[in-house]
């Protein structure tokens, strides 16, 4: 078979990852996350209030501008160069019949990302975003070039019977995410998006989110890519008994991740941590990415300020996870595709917000003396 051409939107900077041999190394690394810059935020707020519009009338776009300034440490944040990281991995739990798709779909769709044919390719092109597709744990061999092979293991173990991965594997996956953020920053990327592909990953993310949110499995479980009632029941039962089996301490996010998570979730959690370390804004895609964001937030609470929620997924647990994250999604279109499609769709809103911020006239320029509330 002729190799597919590498698409211009595919990001092919070399991969690198920090060494994180143990929990202490991770904690030391995460201590480097600094808070948002209050001076830059105050300056952005001041400039927004001078624009020819009623105060605050650009709503949540204004909040986004202020936070982007705080992240960049500058009242002139630059987000022109964007990249969506798509972590791809298989999940051993599919043995339990929790998905409507065969596991071979993971590798096939990962390949399609590199051929430009998927939803995230379409929305990514529209947003002018690059993609970085990472095989962090696919079970079979995706032959396509353009996929970064950073495989921790070929699919996780079945969490219904044993721990999905070891703690050191979870640390390695986090390190891959952290390394991805720094390599993208060096390559000029100024805003990250998150996406994933992994058959079975609505099960793993629901399990992780249920424990971290302290919610019963049934409140977190949805139909994923399209389950019947009976299959939904089975999926809920699998998660419930897995939580029962592993009894992870909700206050120990690394243990929750290793026992109930997936390599895609772990890699994305690393991306959220890495984005905060590199001071890059990072856009959460749907439910699975939000579960990964929650793992990151629990590992390092300061990283939450660097996140933006793109869309309210149709998965029922999404709202609970967004509440736990403290982020309200920008879009609410009942999407549940994953892949990073929601993050890509939200990217232009940030560009629009910054364009308004930079290019609108001020009251002085427009000689509008009266556009102030009447007393």
């Amino acid at each position: 078979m002729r190799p597919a051409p590498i698409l211009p939107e595919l990001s092919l900077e070399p991969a690198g990852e920090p060494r994180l041999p143990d929990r202490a190394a991770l904690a030391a690394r995460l201590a480097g996350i600094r808070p948002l810059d209050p001076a830059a935020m105050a300056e952005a707020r001041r400039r927004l209030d001078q624009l020819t519009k009623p105060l605050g009338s650009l709503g949540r776009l204004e909040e986004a501008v202020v936070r982007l300034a705080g992240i960049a440490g500058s009242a002139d944040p630059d987000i022109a160069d964007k990249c969506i990281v798509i972590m791809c991995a298989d999940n051993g739990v599919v043995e339990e019949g929790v998905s409507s798709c065969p596991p071979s779909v993971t590798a096939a769709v990962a390949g399609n990302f590199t051929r430009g044919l998927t939803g995230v390719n379409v929305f990514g092109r529209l947003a002018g975003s690059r993609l970085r597709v990472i095989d962090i744990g696919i079970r079979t061999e995706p032959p396509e070039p353009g996929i970064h092979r950073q495989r921790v293991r070929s699919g996780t173990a079945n969490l219904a019977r044993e721990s999905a991965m070891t703690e050191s594997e979870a640390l390695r996956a986090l390190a891959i995410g952290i390394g991805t953020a720094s390599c993208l920053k060096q390559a000029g990327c100024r805003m990250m998006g998150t996406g994933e592909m992994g058959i079975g990953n609505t099960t793993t993310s629901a399990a992780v989110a249920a424990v971290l949110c302290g919610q019963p499995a049934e409140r977190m479980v949805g139909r994923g890519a399209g389950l019947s009632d009976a299959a939904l029941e089975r999926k809920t039962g699998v998660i419930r008994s897995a939580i029962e089996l592993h009894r992870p301490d909700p206050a120990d996010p690394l243990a929750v991740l290793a026992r109930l998570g997936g390599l895609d979730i772990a890699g994305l959690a690393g991306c959220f941590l890495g984005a905060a370390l590199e001071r890059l804004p990072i856009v959460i895609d749907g439910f699975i990415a939000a579960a990964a964001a929650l793992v990151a937030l629990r590992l390092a609470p300061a990283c939450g300020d660097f996140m933006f929620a793109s869309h309210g997924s149709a998965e029922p647990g999404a709202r609970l996870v967004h509440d736990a994250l403290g982020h309200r999604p920008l879009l609410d279109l009942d999407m549940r595709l994953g892949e990073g499609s929601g993050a890509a769709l939200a990217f232009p809103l940030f560009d629009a917000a910054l364009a308004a911020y930079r290019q609108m006239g001020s009251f002085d320029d427009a000689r509008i003396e009266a556009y102030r509330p009447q007393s």
Partner: protein
Amino acid sequence: MPLEQTIASVRLPDPGLREAARHKMDFKTKPLGSLGRLEDAAVRLCQMQNSLEPALARRSLVVFAGDHGVAAAGVSAFPAEVTPQMVHNFLAGGAAINVLCRQQGISLRVADLGVNADFAPHPQLIDAKVRRGTRNFLVEPALTREETRQALEMGIMVFERHIAAGHPDIVAMGEMGIGNSSSAAALIAAVCGRTAAEVTGRGTGLDDAGLARKQAAVARALDLHRPDPANGLDLLSKVGGLEIAGMAGFALAAAAAGVPVVLDGLISTAAGLVAAVLCPAVSHWFFSGHRSVEIGQAIALERLGLVPLIDLDLRLGEGTGAALAINILDAACRIMVEMASFESAGVSGKS
């Protein structure tokens, strides 16, 4: 075209294409229905454009401006002088809608339906003035029947003479008019059978006392005029506005020409609602751009059967929400055109 002829020309989007478009969407490499409301939008755009490869290459947005006699009653957080000042700001390119239109490749025009000021000619300005502001509907009807008809037909003219020549794939409507959220609230209350309190919000930023004053004004206008909820001309003449009537006419003309229309916030949704009173089929050509923080909009949207595409707590007006939503609709079109099907990608479907 005269109003009646325009209304008679509005057809439903091609129902025959619905099944083919749905089928095409269902065979894209994604779980069934997983793009949520984007899928419905894409299917509707296929029907409207009579094509399985819909495109939104040519986009046009018109800001309709007009003044309101009721502004004298203290129903707005801003004085009426802001309307002409903001028109100048649009023409100078410094307003939010200028920036968003530039950024999204949307051509922007401003139509003066009734601003209480004169403007020098400007390439982006369309002179469609019917009169300098409406009368204060707390005292008398806002417009005569004849003025109302003129404003509707000016809106039709704006589309036919100034927009249609660019063969737009989609159009959007925004507005500027101090006091117009009171007029919109009164129209929505009258059409949907709601009380003033149920539809009246804080506009661009009223405090509690201002809100109470505005609710009382809307209630008084409804009580004084008792507009006929089934008669678009009666509604607009009694409690409407010139820019609202212009938008209603514009929407009818776009629909008659087979062009989808994106509504913005409260005011343009009220205009869309009145257009649907005049011609029920017109709402099939509408998309709701964004969820306004104004409570009356949700009531009007429910009647129109529309759900907003975005919800960003915008309360700026000008068409900003509609402009942002066009990008979302563009994404929906591109899914239809660019995304692989199961056959072409060699991915197994649902097992």
